[in-house]
Every structure is written in structure tokens, then in C-alpha cells.
């Protein structure tokens, strides 16, 4: 964990680290990673990862349209929209 890594993960996370805080954040992250590194001492060969404490399978839906037209409500809570669309600064491809 160094400044370069922090730059990469900040980019992936779409976060900007304030100039003054860069060093502190890098140090904090380094400490946290060092702290969790103790996991590497554990022998986990042949152990299946547990991604959810419920070791069950999911129920699923039948294929039915249940949604109402929420256009007005949803566009209203958007930070920027016109009568039809959510708006963001023009994306250039």
C-alpha cells in the first residue's frame, strides 16, 4: 500500500483525496492492511469461502410485471432531470 496504490483505488472508487490528507490516508490504509494481514497466517486450504451466513438457496420470482409507472416521482428526486430523462454533463465517447 503506497501512494500509487492509493491513487489507483481512489480512481476506481471515484474519490479524491484532499492534498493535505494524502499522507494520513495512506498511512491509515497501510495500518489497516497490516492489521488484516494476520489472516494470511491461517491455513484455509480446502475451506470453501462463506459469502453469506445463510447457506441456503434463493427463492425466485415468477415472470410478472408488477411495477407501476414511477417516472414523475423518480425524476423528481433526481438532482438534474427534464420531463423525460435524468441528466448528466455530456458524455463524449
Amino acid at each position, binding site marked *: 500500500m503506497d501512494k500509487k496504490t492509493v491513487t489507483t483505488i481512489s*480512481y476506481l472508487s*471515484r474519490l479524491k483525496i484532499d492534498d493535505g490528507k494524502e499522507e494520513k490516508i495512506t498511512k491509515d490504509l497501510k495500518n489497516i492492511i497490516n492489521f488484516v494481514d494476520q489472516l494470511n497466517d491461517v491455513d484455509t486450504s480446502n475451506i470453501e469461502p462463506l459469502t453469506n451466513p445463510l447457506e441456503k438457496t434463493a427463492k*425466485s*420470482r415468477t415472470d410478472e*410485471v408488477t411495477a407501476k409507472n414511477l*417516472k414523475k416521482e423518480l*425524476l423528481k428526486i433526481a438532482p438534474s432531470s427534464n420531463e423525460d*430523462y*435524468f441528466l448528466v454533463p455530456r458524455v463524449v465517447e
Partner: protein
Amino acid sequence: MSWETVIGLEIHAQLSTKSKLFSGGSTKFGAEPNTHVDLIDMGLPGVLPVANKEAFYKAIRFGLATGANINQTSSFDRKNYFYPDLPKGYQITQMTKPIVEKGSIKITVDNSEKIINITRAHLEEDAGKSIHDLFEGETGVDLNRAGTPLLEIVSEPEISNAKEAVAYFKAIRQLVTFLDICDGNMAQGSMRCDVNVSIKKSDDKELGTRAELKNINSFKFIEKAINYEIERQIKVIESGESVVQETRLYDSEKNETRSMRSKEEANDYRYFPCPDLLPVVISNKELQEIKNNLPELPEEKEHRYVKEINLEESEAKIISSSKTMANMFEEASTKTDDAKLVAKWLVGDVSALLNKDNIDIDESNLTSENFGILIERISDSTISGKIAKSVLEEVWKSGSNVDKIIETKGLIQIQDESVLEEIAKKVVESNPSQVTAYKGGKDKLFGFFVGQVMKETQGKANPQTVNDILKNILD
């Protein structure tokens, strides 16, 4: 030394479910923007996905039809990236345990067959649409499409040229439409494809660096884009440089591919198991039921047409090549005792018109219903074959109802013998020299008299009746 091309396709087929993969939002195409957006599709804080079973069933049909392994327990992962039409900031997809693995499909290019292996086919959710050119300085986001189920079908890199790529895409499209799991409508984006292209020297063991051509949605463009890209890569390598692994966009207007700068920056999708969704299990009973109800596939149809209906192999192949045409054939065959007549029309006149316009049967104005009426009117002698041809052309142009065309244009075949006899007599009387010549042994002139009668009746005379009458008068 020559260059060898290695191509792999990733086809995205929208599954034709009524509702979305994880919400009760409608998947209907063409609605007013943002009217088919559920709380879940919007990615509001606190919402949770629940998987649509029908999407699994449809994916399994594809797996069974391609002889693939079906993973009865399959799970979902998150693919993380930011884009305005990706509401949650991640796409739910199947990375580690796809529903379908290791299938294959047969393609035919220049009369030779080749098997293309399918690595996997997995379920994932579609993104919304970003509209870049509608508003000054702004991009509009329409989330109607967000969450529509997609089956991503990934081929092995076993495709050797642009023609094979097109044949493969066509074969997949034919299959998904026959399976009734995707409408195959490329203009509406129901099927899209990304193409991975690389080149290598013939004796190189390792694959070359590949470029990914994004989101191509017509057969014509696939071929052009691939051929352009092959040429480009050869030029790059021959000039001593190396191909960069990147995503490239095909510009159909300029017929070129170009690097997508926006995607160039290192992305790392940070896939991990979606903690909101437990694995979905398909029971043996469900699997058996899907097997039992698998629709007839193109190859099976082709064999049946030859065996049971005595069609020529070439006819059977053309008709079974598209679901729409096969449906037309089967429906129209119920309107006549002569299925071979139906085949003749489809393979003959209809196919000729398709070729002329260079379109697909789905894009034409001809509906299955209207074609059925046309066949019925030929069979019951309401119109002659010749008239039918002009009716078909009219339908082709306007899409009008066959009966309506026959009525408004007064095209009903003249069956009344006394009317035809009178016309025939008039024709014979007004052409004495031809009569003399015919009687003198010029048999071929019989056709001339038939032609004249048809001309007088504007083609509406029943040709058999005219033959009989003229024979009576002249012989």
C-alpha cells in the same frame, strides 16, 4: 508467411421475459423514457434484487439446444464500474458459476460445415440507455432498459474470418428465435455483439494481442468491422509496432474502428459474489420439464419437411432457416392441400423479393396471416398464379390485406366459360392469318392465342379453362 485470424464473439441476447431479471419492471421495447423503471431498476438505497425464474428457464433452453452443461446451482456476482446508465454502480452478472457452460453450434460457410464451441452463456442485467445527442451539453439517461435480462453467449476463439463470424452470429440468432427466448430484433438492440479479433503468424502457437470491437448490431457491420480490423492489425505489426489490447468502436459511416479513449484507462471490475443474492437452484423436475417442452429446432424442421412433406432439401433448408419463414410455411400449409405449392412460393417469389431488397423476412411487409390468405386464394382458384405474383408485389410495397387488393383491383379470376368463350372467339376472328398458320402446322402459335385472351382479360382468365376453350375452337 501468411497471417491467421482468431476471432471470438460475445453475443448479448435480450431474453424475452415479460419482466426484468431482478424486478417487476416491464421489458417492453419502445416505451416513453423512464416509464418502465421500478425502484429496483433505479438502484434506490435499500432495494434488493429477486431473480426472475423465467430468465433461467430461457437460458437453460439455450444450453440444452447447444448440448451444453447446465449448472443447476448458479450464482451471481457483481461487476463494479461507474456509468450514468448503470444505476447501482455495478452490474449483476454470473462470473464464477454461469448457468450454461460448454456448448457448441454448427455453422455453414460456402457449403462446408464447422463446429464452433461455446465457452459459456450466463445471465446478466442490461444497462439503461444514454442519449448523447438530444440535449445541448448534456447526456440524458433512460433507465427503461436497465435490468432487462441478457444471455451473454461467449464463443471460443475458434472463428477464422469475418464470414464465419457472420455465419456464427446468424446461427445463434436463428437458434434463439426458434427457442423463443429472444426476438432476435437487431434494429431494436435485442441482439448485440462484441468481437474479439487478433492475428498471428500461421506457425505461431500463442494467440496475438486482441482488440475488442464493441456493440456491433448488424451482420453487414460485423463483416466490415472485422475485415477492417484485420487489415489494421496487419499494418500495425508489419510496420514494426505491436497491437494494443483495447476496446475499439466501429464507425459504420467511415468504415473504420477507432480506440475508445474513455475505456482506455485501466479498469478493474472487482468482481465478487453478490451478497444480496443466494445461489439459485434448478430442480431436476424443472430441468426435465424444460427438456420435454423444447421447441422443434431448425435442423429437425428441415428433416421433417423433407421426410414428411417431400420438400426438396434445398427448399427445406431455406424455409427452416428462419423462424418467421418456417411459421409462414406451416401456417399457410393449413390453407391448402398442396404444401409444395407453399414451399414453391416461399423459396421462389418471396425469396426473390427478399434478395432484391436485401432484407430479412422479419423486416418485410409480408405477414404470416396475409401470406396464408394469398395461398388460400391461389388454391381455391380465386386468382391465378400470375395475378398472385402481382398481388404479392403489392403486399410487399404496402402491406395491404390480400383480399382487399384482390377486391379493389378487381382481380378475381374469370371462371365463367361463356364469357371466356366469347373473348376467345373474338381473338380468333380478329387474327385470321395466325389461325391459318396454326392450322398449317405452326403449333407454337397456340400460346399466342392464350396470350391474347389473357391480355383481353387483364390476366384474370383461368389459364386451364382458356386452353380448353381455344382447343375446342381451333382444333
